[in-house]
């Protein structure tokens, strides 16, 4: 029924298990009890605002930081006892961290050279990898003279060429322009599926997270807000933070009158959410693209168009009712100042628990 559970069956064994992980720096608690299972071949994305602890989680998995409390298991083994150079994990660092004294080729070949792989095989793999990230012909170039985007792609190639069991990617596409970013997203996803590596991918770009991942983990301030498929996260945000962070939304306080019946702005709506207490105070998320503008007489809600912005594919309108302003996305054009009605289908109304804080 829920697409997440279908996915869950396809996804195989747990490879990394994080239990009750906390991390303190001095007196600041950066991670506050993270519980997370990461599966083989999973594309898992850590998504959250700057400073929420994404990099710290990766650094603990890679072995550059010790957990303050909690456990990290890798294939059932306690990871903290294994030094970082022995872990079957490679990292694409947020700041690239390329070796300035090596050229592009030798940077990418660094890991394979350490493993004493045959020179010809190294040459073959490195050349293939450089082709994959679009840097063929750059072999002899000095990495310090590359552009940010090129350095980032060298960093991806340098990690990926080792074919680790788990690849940690810390905002690996941050320095690329929109077009290259899209290309690399597709390429990374393809590589991940072909080679069958687990990706733990960090980004604060929600669109990137939604389009690439099997599982999205939304983090805020060291606490997991929600774990789910991109569709789940987008359609069924569990709280106001997730709803706000992922996509644009109208968040409205309301009351759950009964199963599948919610009331907000003094209007009763049929919805699909069940299992709340009778008359429980809840919050409703309405995505701007789910609100349909209709003739005034057909509307469940009525208001006046007070603002119109062209966004490329669609227009963004602000419709002012006597209760609040609604943000609405549609491809139709409406004149400023006209009165319109708005309708909501039952499955466009997402009910969530009110956040305690």
């Amino acid at each position, binding site marked *: 029924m829920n697409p997440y559970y279908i996915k869950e069956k396809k996804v195989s064994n747990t490879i990394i298990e994080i239990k009750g992980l906390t991390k303190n720096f001095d007196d600041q608690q950066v991670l506050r009890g993270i519980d997370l299972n990461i599966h083989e071949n999973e594309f898992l994305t850590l998504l959250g605002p700057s400073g929420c602890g994404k990099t710290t989680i990766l650094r603990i998995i*890679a*072995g*550059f930081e010790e957990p303050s409390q909690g456990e990290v298991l890798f294939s059932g083994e306690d990871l903290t006892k294994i*030094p*970082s*150079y*022995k872990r079957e*994990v*490679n*990292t694409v*660092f947020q*700041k690239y*961290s*390329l*070796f*300035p*004294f090596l050229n592009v080729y030798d940077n990418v070949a*660094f*890991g394979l050279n*350490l*493993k004493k792989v045959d020179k010809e095989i190294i040459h073959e793999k490195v050349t293939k990898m450089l082709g994959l990230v679009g840097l063929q012909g750059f072999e002899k170039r*000095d990495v*310090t*003279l590359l552009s940010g985007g090129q350095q980032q792609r060298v960093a991806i190639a*340098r*990690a990926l060429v*080792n074919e680790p069991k788990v690849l940690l990617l810390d905002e690996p596409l941050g320095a690329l322009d929109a077009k290259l970013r899209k290309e690399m997203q597709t390429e990374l996803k393809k590589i991940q599926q072909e080679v069958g590596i687990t990706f733990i991918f960090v980004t604060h770009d929600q669109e990137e997270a939604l389009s690439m991942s099997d599982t999205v983990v939304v983090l805020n301030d060291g606490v997991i807000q929600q774990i789910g498929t991109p569709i789940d996260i987008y359609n069924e945000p569990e709280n106001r933070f997730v709803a706000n962070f992922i996509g644009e939304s109208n968040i409205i306080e309301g009351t759950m009158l009964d199963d599948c019946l919610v009331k907000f702005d003094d209007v009763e709506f049929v919805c699909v959410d069940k299992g709340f207490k009778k008359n429980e105070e809840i919050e409703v998320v309405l995505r701007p693209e789910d609100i349909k503008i209709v003739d005034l007489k057909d509307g469940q809600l009525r208001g006046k168009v007070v603002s119109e912005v062209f966004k490329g594919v669609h227009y963004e309108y602000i419709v002012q009712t006597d209760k609040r302003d609604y943000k609405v996305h549609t491809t139709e054009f409406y004149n400023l100042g006209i009165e319109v009605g708005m309708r909501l289908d039952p499955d466009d109304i997402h009910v969530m628990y009110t956040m305690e804080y």
Partner: protein
Amino acid sequence: MKHFKKLINPYIVWSFFLIVVPLFLIVLYSITKGTSTLVNITFTPEHFKKIFEPVYLNVFFKSLQLGIITTIVCLTLGYPMAYIISKASESVQGILILLVTIPMWINTLLRTYAWISLLSDNGLINRLLSVMGIAPAHMMYTDFSVIMGLVCDLMPFMVIPIHTSLTKMDHSLVEAAADLGANKVQTFTKVILKLSLPGVISGITMVFLLSISTFVIPKLLGGAQYTLIGNLIEQQFISIGDWNFGSAISLILALIIIALMRFMNKIDPDEKGGE
């Protein structure tokens, strides 16, 4: 901005009198006859020819040899020292670096005399040896005593630049190496050593240049017959009074130093990056 440029003028005048004029005089002395007067200057290449006499050539070779040995000893002792210091906590590092530089606060003469009382035939070390029943060793006025003195004198010039380059090294590169599977030893040889190369190069340059041009230490610890380039120059100016030959030797030494510095700059990876 133009306004401030005027402030440089006094310095230009000063450097002219303190650097350019003496340099010009050295060049002039080195290519003229000793009998020249202000009105009657006769040029001659004889002083430069004289340097190629075996006696003097030997002095050059001896100096270079001693410089190389001193540099190698300083590097092999100084690098581990700098590395260990850089591993300590920040406050401890400050103290250790201070300790490394303490000898520099004491006058070279004083320190060198201390060596004499340690190393001489009836000095502290030999007396200790005889107490333990070991035959005394002759240490003063040998290559050993000179190198010992030079190494201790110049060690800070090796340790400090290496320490600086180790501490300002980008630590994330060490993590990147570990991430790619390098153990401690591999991380050191493949990454840390390469990143500290600029410090190593300036350490080598300084120690070598200072050791081939020194004259106090070889004179006191090597004895009267122990002659290096520095002593040769000193002799020509002070005891023999042949300023012309002394200038020629100084000029050759200066050329050697300039050539070496250019060479060292070439192999410094930091210099290459800017091209």
